[in-house]
């Protein structure tokens, strides 16, 4: 299927075939990362602005390297150093970036919908690198890529997402992506962070961790997002670790081939025991490697024009 979207704002509006197109394309870019020369000229002459209004290290670095490996010119714009401190609105900042002829804006923002807003006021391609508790589409795509690469397919798999679902854009994007690709999702965590309303997204909701992980092919752990919680949603970190943390005893109850995923940054000893994070079931660092390939694929696909593909084999 050929890609026709101008922006990557969320997973919700993508068709399953579009998600598969990204994953297929990313496979080619992962191979580029294994070569001696890891750079290709696909985005030569294009300017990408990384507009990170909310702090981020790994996503920003991953995008930055992806852009550089595609030969784009890269500008980094972070909240601490920027004019937001001087009271400029997001719209004005973005219009200034447009005046510099930026071709792509990669935005991370604490407000849900900020990327959608930018896509309406700007001519540039907009990529959502995480907006509030709404979506983090490239994270879900790299997770889907990792699952597909390890398991061969996503259809029919039992995927459990364990942790702070309520405040997690990673969870939302993963729910959209994986259900579209035919996985069965189970959400688990403290009842305050995993409300029953998520059943409306086609997921099973449970607050019993053993029930959640025993049949899972994939266990996706999420960090407790202290920064997004207005008040304490559960008594203590220690209690969370005890009730929901993935430890040796709990791991022993899972299926032998079950994979452990985590979008990072991990809190060792809270949602995951140290040995498990470093263990053979963990694909946490593969997720980081795959993230680079997936972000290159997204930039590559969005860069494509509207024209047809015909005649490509005939020249």
């Amino acid at each position, binding site marked *: 299927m*050929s*890609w*026709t979207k101008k922006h990557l704002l969320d997973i919700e509006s993508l068709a399953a075939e579009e998600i598969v197109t990204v994953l*297929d*394309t990313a*496979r*080619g*870019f992962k*191979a*580029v990362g294994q*070569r*001696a*020369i890891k*750079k*290709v*000229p*696909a*985005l030569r002459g*294009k300017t990408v602005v990384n507009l990170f209004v909310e702090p981020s290290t790994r996503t920003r670095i991953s995008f930055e390297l992806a852009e550089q490996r595609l030969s784009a010119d890269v500008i980094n714009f972070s909240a601490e150093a920027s004019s937001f401190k001087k009271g400029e609105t997001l719209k004005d900042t973005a219009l200034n970036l447009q005046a510099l002829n930026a071709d792509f804006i990669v935005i991370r923002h604490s407000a849900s919908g900020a990327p959608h807003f930018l896509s309406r006021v700007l001519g540039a391609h907009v990529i959502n690198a995480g907006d509030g508790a709404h979506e983090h589409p490239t994270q879900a795509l790299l997770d889907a890529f990792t699952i597909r690469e390890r398991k061969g397919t996503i259809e029919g798999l039992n995927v459990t997402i364990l942790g702070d679902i309520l405040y997690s854009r990673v969870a939302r994007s993963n729910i959209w992506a994986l259900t579209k690709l035919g996985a069965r999702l189970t959400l688990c965590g403290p009842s305050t962070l995993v409300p029953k309303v998520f059943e409306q997204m086609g997921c099973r909701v449970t607050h019993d961790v053993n029930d959640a992980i025993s049949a899972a092919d994939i266990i996706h752990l999420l960090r407790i997002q202290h920064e997004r919680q207005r008040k304490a949603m559960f008594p203590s970190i220690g209690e969370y670790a005890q009730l929901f943390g993935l430890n040796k005893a709990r791991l022993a109850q899972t299926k032998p081939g079950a994979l452990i995923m985590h979008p990072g940054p991990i809190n060792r000893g809270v949602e995951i025991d140290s040995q498990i994070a470093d263990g053979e079931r963990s694909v946490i660092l593969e997720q980081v490697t795959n993230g680079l390939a997936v972000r290159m694929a997204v930039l*590559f*696909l969005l*860069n*494509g*024009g*509207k*024209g*047809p*593909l015909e*005649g*490509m*084999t*005939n*020249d």
Partner: protein
Amino acid sequence: MPESTVILDATAIQRALTRIAHEIAERSEISTEVVLVGIPTGGVPLAERLAKVLSEIWKHPVPIGSLDVSMHRDDLDRRAAPKIHPTVMPFDVTGKTVVLVDDVLFSGRTIRAAMDALNDFGRPKKIQLAVLIDRGHRELPIKADFVGKNVPTAPEEEIRAQLGKMDEVILERK
């Protein structure tokens, strides 16, 4: 209704490949320096078949690779992003004579992209080009070293090379 003509049938394709293989053998002083690199999708099965004939002539295996050129194209923002095919280069190209293999030579832009892509894998001693069909209408100063058949075409016509179960090359007039 598009009008289709078969311009090469299975026998003619095999004959053309055998002739190209002999020409490659004739032009190559050191047979062990020659590697064949097919351009997906059409060039890959052709490279495999050429390698088979060449290995019979030379009595040693001829290495084959496949090189996806889509990331090096010059029209990436002008049409829908191309599908990316696997690149497999199981040898060092530095010092080798690389024969690029494609099914149809048209504008020459794919070959330019291929030469660019190949550079990322090393510095070949020579790059040569073998194609099954040269249909003309070049947009770049590129010429094939080995040609199965020259087919004069109109730009709006299409050539479809089907290789595999049903070996045939078809010219389609719209």
